C-alpha cells in the first residue's frame, strides 16, 4: 500500500525490531522484507535511520562481517533490552488495534 508513510512512522521501528528478533539480519535484507509484506514506500534509507536509532538506544548488537561481494555488512541481533522493547511494542500494538476495533463497532 502507498502513501501510508506518516501513519507508518511510529510503527516501523517496531517492525524492524520484530524482523531483527526473528534472526540476525542486515539493513538491505530488512528493507526487502518490509517491501515484500507490502510496505512499498520503504527505502533503504528509512531502515538505515531506524537501525541507527536502535543502535543509539543499545537495543541491538552489531557485528561487522565482510561479504564476498560488496562492502562489509553490519549484522544486527537484538540485545536483552531490544528483546524487551520488541515485546513492549507488540503490547502497545495490541492495545491500539483493540481500541480501534472497538471504535469501529
Amino acid at each position: 500500500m502507498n502513501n501510508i508513510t506518516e501513519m507508518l512512522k511510529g510503527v516501523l521501528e517496531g517492525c524492524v525490531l520484530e524482523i531483527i528478533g526473528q534472526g540476525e539480519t542486515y539493513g538491505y535484507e530488512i528493507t526487502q522484507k518490509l517491501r515484500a509484506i507490502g510496505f512499498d514506500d520503504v527505502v533503504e534509507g528509512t531502515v538505515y535511520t531506524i537501525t541507527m536509532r536502535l543502535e543509539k538506544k543499545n537495543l541491538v548488537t552489531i557485528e561487522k562481517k565482510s561479504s564476498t561481494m560488496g562492502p562489509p555488512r553490519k549484522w544486527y541481533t537484538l540485545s536483552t533490552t531490544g528483546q524487551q522493547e520488541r515485546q513492549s511494542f507488540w503490547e502497545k500494538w495490541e492495545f491500539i488495534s483493540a481500541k480501534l476495533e472497538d471504535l469501529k463497532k
Partner: protein
Amino acid sequence: MTENRTLIDRMLGLEEKREWHEFEKRAKALGDDYYADYNAMKKYIWISGVEKWKDFKFIFDHVLDLLEEVAIDGRKVTSITGPDVATFLDEMVEHKGWEDKQKDKLNKIMHEK
C-alpha cells in the same frame, strides 16, 4: 575550508581532532565525488543543532559507513537515502534543530511559573 578549520580548532580537543582527521581520511579515500558528497552532508549536519562531539561522531561515522557502502559499486548516495537527502539527514540527527530548542524553551518557561 579555512573558516571551517578555525571553528573546528576552537571546538575540539586533541582527541576529538584526531577522530575528526580520521573521518576526513576515510572520506578522502572514497575519491573526489564522494568526498564532495561527504563535505556537503557534513556542512548540513554541522548546522543541524547537534551540540556534543559524541553525537557528531556517531552521525559522521554512519554517514561514512553509508558512503563506503555506495562507493564500492559506484552507486549514488540517493540510491540509499532516497531523493530527499536533507530529510534523511534530519532523521539521522533526529532533527533537534533550532525550532525544537525554541519549543523546549517555551514549554520550560510556561511550566516554571
